[in-house]
């Protein structure tokens, strides 16, 4: 089986994997980073969003072997320390932007990418349009939209 090496949440990792292994499988099954979820098989739901070299991508649509040398960040890797939360995580909690929690890691990773691309002052319309690739079945998005706006503002501080 071919070998792949990448950096995940700042740590170098390697694995011998079948060619068809998806990045999300590699993260979940080989590295046991189960915060990245799988909610569909057609690249629609966004539960699997991670950052690849700083850019949000759906890890269900990437082969792990493509990630040779890449730097991957997952939900487990965004907090500044084990005892602190990232401001976007804090905003989701403060604004009740999650219920069952299953779409949440993907939502937070996408939200961070929205801030990267669109800045810290996000209006409701922009957030709703930009969340197109993430499906939540619990919250009706109302509080997710609030959370993303608040998290974006907090990240500017």
């Amino acid at each position: 089986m071919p070998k792949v090496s990448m950096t995940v949440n700042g740590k170098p990792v390697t694995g011998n994997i079948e060619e068809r292994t998806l990045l999300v499988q590699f993260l979940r099954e080989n590295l046991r980073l189960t915060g990245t979820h799988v909610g569909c098989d057609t690249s629609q739901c966004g539960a699997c969003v991670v950052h690849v070299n700083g850019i949000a991508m759906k890890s269900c649509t990437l082969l792990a072997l493509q990630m040779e040398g890449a730097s991957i960040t997952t939900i487990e890797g965004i907090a500044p320390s084990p005892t602190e939360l990232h401001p976007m995580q804090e905003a989701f909690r403060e604004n009740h932007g999650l219920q069952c929690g299953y779409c949440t890691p993907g939502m937070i990773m996408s939200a961070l990418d929205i801030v990267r691309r669109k800045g810290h002052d996000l209006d409701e319309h922009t957030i709703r349009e930009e969340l197109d690739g993430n499906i939540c079945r619990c919250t009706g998005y109302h509080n997710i939209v609030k959370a993303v706006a608040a998290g974006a503002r907090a990240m500017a501080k």
Partner: protein
Amino acid sequence: MTATGIGAAVRRKEDIRFITGKGQYTDDVVRPGETRAVFVRSPHAHAKIKRIDTAEAARMPGVVAILTGADLANDKIGNLICGWMIHSKDGSPMKMAPHPAIASGKVNHVGDAVAVVIAETRAQGRDAADKVKVDYEELPAVADPAKAQAKDAPQIHADIPNNTIYQWSLGDEKAVGDAFRGAKHVTRLDIVNNRLVPNAIEPRAALAEYDAGTDNLTLWNTSQNPHVARLVISAFVGIAPEHKLRVIAPDVGGGFGSKIFIYPEEVVCLWAARKTGRPVKWTAERSEAFLTDAHGRDHVTHAEMAFDGDGKILALRAKTIANLGAYMSTFSSSIPTYLYATLLSGQYGIPQIYCEVDAVYTNTVPVDAYRGAGRPEATFVVERLVEVGAREMGLDPADLRKRNFIKQFPHQTPVIMAYDAGDYNASLKKAMELADVKGFGKRKRDSARHGKLRGLGYSTYIEACGIAPSQAVGSLGAGVGLWESAEVRVNPTGSVEVLTGSHAHGQGHETTFAQLVSERLGIPFENISVLHGDTDKVQFGMGTYGSRSGAVGMSAIAQALDKVIAKAKKVAAFMMEASEGDIEFKDGKFTVAGTDKSAAWDDVALNAYIAHKFTGAELEPGLKETSFYDPTNFTFPAGCHICEVEVDSETGRTEIVNWTAVDDFGTVINPMIVEGQVHGGIAQGVGQALLEGAVYDKDGQLVSGSFMDYSMPRAHDLPSFKLGLTETKSPSNPLGIKGCGEAGAIAAPAAVINAITDAIGTEQISMPATAQTVWSALQRANAARQAAE
């Protein structure tokens, strides 16, 4: 109100693990030596299985076992069952066809399992599954419930003619007929309540492990009610005796009803784990979920409402065909009967109601409860009839509603339910203010200037929640009681563990239940933990559905807390050498009336366990109490949702521009969580009204079987919502809670369709009201208008 007590918007305890990626969902659990189950599923809606050849597949790398329906039968594994008996109006019992976990001899829907491959990895399982050869002899299929009873329709199950499960009725047909004959106006509607796929974002999963040393089986699964799963799998399917089976439903990523039921895959994983001696895991792919998760709704209804000359409703009559799919799912029979027709009185004093329901088999995925379960269908019938009736009679829809609102409680409807509390005028009035109904005319004119058609629609809904008094549901055919259990364990250091039979899959019970305990015991919120979802730890409980966890589950906790406090008072009495009757308990402190003696909660807890101050003959050591709470009535949450839309007359695209919801949920424990529940419910209701539809072609192929074609509501499909509350306490439980989980999904579809039809001026609109549907309706209406001119 304390900062963490009842009524406080406490931030959730469960969030930390979810926002840091530390949740433990079933697929995240890994057992040593774990194998993967991959199912071979029928691509045909209806076919005989002529032959299954597993020889080539069995030689594939990594294959541990391949099992078929024949193996299942050889091992005498029982069928899945529907646990609610419905009798037809002629007195005959419903006709339940056998539902084996793996089909044997015949498949009855696309996705019906015909074999399972157990392999070392999922990829190897898939490779092998592709090599399982199944010879089918195709049979004609029927997917449309309206065609299932036709003479030339294929009969799906032996001995069940016309695919008819039951022909049930409720109400006085003759009295209703008389009322219609005396009516000044009759409104008639043909309604299709579109079939939906629940689509919790976590796909269903099961992991089973067998311990040969103890003969114990453990199942981790995505369940809303692990004890009921254990009971059914033991008592009916016969996999293992109840005490030898442990069911753990860890973090569950949304349910919406679809995770109540006992599914074939759980049975197969357990069976295969014992057979192979290896842990067996199955996780649905989304495509598989579309073909195996119980779907929701799917009613075809003709409904009529009779009015007198003053716009008073005289009677309602409805005839519904309910599609239950290829097999009867766990609670499927009750949804289009006792959870549907019993709510046809809405918020209105309707003297006579008659409803007939035919439940039919079709070659489609089984249909069962989905958020609201029967009550959205009832609300849609009632709220569409009232709205259309008002328009036909030239009356204001809000005014017509007010004229017919029930104002005195208790109110016995003609369809079983006895409403015990409510104030429907109050929620309507508040909603109309919040929605600025007065300013609607101006907004409509503004929209018209931009080529947009603006419409406003009401939905004054009611639901029966807090499901439900055991004796009442027993008399209606339920095979189970619908009480709930709780155990409150006070530790020697005074911290508290609550073990509840309710199950959370997004509702935030770890937070709200702790709020109740914090308030009642006066102890810090942080010192309370709530445990659920493990049959080895938690006493038998009934689980979460029907907006029951607050009204029933928390009432059980409240009852256990009363017992704990009573016992703690006894301990405090011994400690302070006072008479038990003189002990008062407030804010976490025990005092002796008329003295300055006091004992802190922690001290009393410790003394209960060290038992130095009393003898065993006087008082048992320990501080732990259990309660089984059975409610005295359903609860009746109700309210008013107002939807305002703008329809693009060129494209038919509907945009929801305002949404106002004023709900009466009785006591609210945590307003933040309640609002979240309402938001989510509205989104699912809007999804039904505008976007979602499980579409079968005439051959029984599901053609909207992925998120590419089944349109899930996304952030830009919805507005932010304006919410309000009114409050009348439920008298049927000690906390006054009514329940909030389903309200949005129940109220929303009628509000949306009432708004769209108001905007476009024609009632001929079906759900989902996609741009194409609305555009076509506009064209038909324009053509009709031109023809009339």
